[in-house]
């Protein structure tokens, strides 16, 4: 089946089986390698992308369910002001260890900050606890989210 997709503001096409998860369309068909495969069962969050601005697990989202919704991936999140600030904070605070989960963490963090521009620790815990980090960079992730929130507050 041919699917017309809106990804990071570009119109792209993929000819794949309807049950193909969005993750594999991104990675293998469209060669966007930033979104990662971790568990395949919506357990780890490494494959988090935005569908019409909302975080979803691309490993369990069949391409047939995407429809005309716009997809944002880690490759495109820097086009967004909050996304860019999150990327910057991630670099300044040296958040990654291995870095494999961080695309998903950044996508989750951007969603959280859009919902709660000044999140409390509890809101960060609630918003980020479905994104696992095997290296356990959680202290830095939390600090980076606070840093973005503070920067936004100070204008």
């Amino acid at each position, binding site marked *: 089946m041919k699917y017309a997709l809106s990804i990071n503001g570009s119109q792209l096409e993929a000819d794949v089986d309807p049950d193909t998860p969005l993750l594999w369309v991104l990675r293998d068909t469209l060669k966007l390698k930033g979104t990662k495969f971790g568990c395949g069962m919506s357990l780890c969050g490494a494959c988090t992308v935005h569908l019409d601005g909302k975080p979803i697990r691309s490993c369990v989202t069949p391409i047939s369910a995407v429809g005309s919704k716009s997809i944002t991936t880690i490759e495109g999140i820097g086009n967004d002001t909050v996304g860019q600030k999150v990327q910057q904070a991630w670099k300044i605070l040296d958040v990654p260890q*291995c870095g494999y989960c961080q695309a998903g963490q950044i996508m989750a963090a951007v969603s959280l900050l859009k919902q709660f521009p000044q999140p409390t620790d509890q809101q960060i815990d609630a918003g980020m606890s479905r994104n696992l980090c095997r290296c356990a960079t959680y202290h*830095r992730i939390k600090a980076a989210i606070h840093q973005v929130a503070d920067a936004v507050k100070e204008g």
Partner: protein
Amino acid sequence: MTTTLNPARRHFLKASAAIGGGLFLGLYLPNIAYAAEAGQMAVLSAHVRITADGVIEIMSVAPEIGQGIKTSLPMVICEELDADWAQVSVLQAPVNSDAFGRQSAGGSRSTPAHFDEHRRIGAAARQMLLQAAAEQWQVPLASLTTQAGIVHHGASGRQLSYARLANQAARQQSPDLASITLKNPADFSLIGQFTSGVDNDALVHGRPLFGIDVELPSMLHAVIHKCPVFGGRVKTVDLASINALPGIRHAFVIDTSSVDSGVAIVADSWWQAEKARRQLKVQWDEGKAKQQNSADFDKQAQQLWRKAPSQITQQVGNVDKAFADAAKVIEAEYAYPFIAHGQLEPINCTAHWQAGHLTLWAPTQNPASGQRQAASAIGIDVNDVTVNVTRMGGGFGRRLFNDYMAEAAIIAKQVGVPVKLLWNRQDDFQHDYYRPGGYHKFKAGIDAQGQLQAFSDHFVSFGNNGRTLLAAGMHAAEFPTGFVPNLQFGSSLIEAQIPTGWLRAPTSNAMGFVFQSMLDEVAHAAGQDPLAFQLALLRRSDAKPQNGFSPQRMAAVLERVAELSDWGKPVPEFHGKGIACYYSHAGYFAEVVQASVNQMGAVKVEKIWVVGDVGQFIVNPSGAMHQVQGAVLEGLSQALYQQVLIDGGAQVSNYHQHKILAMNAVPEVEVEFLATDNPTTGLGEPALPPVIPALCNALFAATGKRVRSLPIKAEMFA
């Protein structure tokens, strides 16, 4: 500090401008291969290259698994080179032990193996740049200074950038590394500074870096379906129906002694291969592992404990007499489970077999070993295999084993076009090299003053045909060996067919739990404060420390962590603090955990204090903090959640059954390093072992109940 240079490697510091005219192949993706015009790049050593436009290229010799080595070791070269870190570009070194020495990531060994050598390599490159400037300006070398990539001649005010001097520098005689002058550490401007990872920009933009991201022209995708029982083999399989499915290019049985038996499916896309696999009809010959299971292992341990150990591994004094003479004898049985690595990037390897040569793009912690294993699997010479090391989505010891490189080699040779093998998460959990489980039956005897006089352990571990499984052994020098006048360690083996291997702080991650918990039990039985008890043990006048272990360094970290954590101050009801220390991978760590238990028995870890001594320098404080916090939180995941039950094979398929600590369970972790006048050692591992017993000891302090088996079960405290 002693020099650990291998004299045989010195010739690689011979510089050559001619190399600057060569073609430099990109590190793993063909589309980032680049050519250097003749004379535009100066190669000062295998480790350092300076381009005409001023980029200082430094090789990262060790594989990057998240331990930060790709940032920290190049920092060491940059420091002594006196270059500007902003001008540095770090490249992953090719696999070449002649040029780069040790190139594996394991055992917290990369820093101690390379720290001193990298200082000297950096200093040698700087020296050559100085010689070039002295030659050009006809001034004495001693009149020149360097700063941030520029050579200055103070007297005349002249200056030249390293880039301008590079070609002339490459023609200089390379200095003797052993005698080269190093910076005074007081002048360090990069070592000791918080430095963000060199791949961070690529990471936050989702650019390809990892093994799983490798993309080659006309590449196919492969999966291998294996028997869920360890060692099981394909008996019959219907390949014809698989071959008929969309996108499937190849389906064949792999059945050789070099890798696990299985069915390989190769398709245009990974999803097609994975989907086809779900329709696969295989009959397995499950073999003798079918009979084994965890409940039976537990029973066998109890039976073995009733007999004498089959082997005595350490014997000091006379434990039998000392137990008979003891004022009090304390006995306890401990157990810990098999656990999996669960590194987040699933196992993968990309391979291309072409004209008798195999090229691999491999996320491997041990590339040279993988190169040999892949060569052997397809019967070719090791020189006919090229390994390109990619960044890894976690290692933790899993990728020290290169089974997947051999598998990729076998598939690539069969299909003859580039192919990426990728396991799914269930493959990863069910075909791991597990941290072995184990059982310890301890006995300790104290005298009327509460001093430890006798200590014994009957360790029941796992073996195959009487040989201890990999990473399932125990060190004869395990503390308190050397600190008790009468001590005996014995071991017995349960027969098992289970692949085992190294997991972050191998053996120590289990021994820390059992020994430091048991010593806490003894302290309480002696009516002593656990900190005071352990300090007194370390300071015994009759102590005979083993294998370079320094009781002074351990006592120092213990005392400091006690101070930091207000050890001894009262805590609220159902709260407790526990303390533990452990020496592993040349690092000394003491940790205090404060934990609480609610009415449902749920354990909450509230705060952790960590003090470590890894010698003189912390190269990158950011990476160092990461390693300590990561190791400590990994220890909590092990203590609170993780086990792999065995029933023929591993009864774990994904992260819901082998959990990882999530953001909402993460406590504050306060870390301090004691800088001591000792060689700088590694940080990947030594912070992990103490946290598990410190937590269990805290739970005892909170509830009076002793955790003697992992993972911790809430029922115990309800």
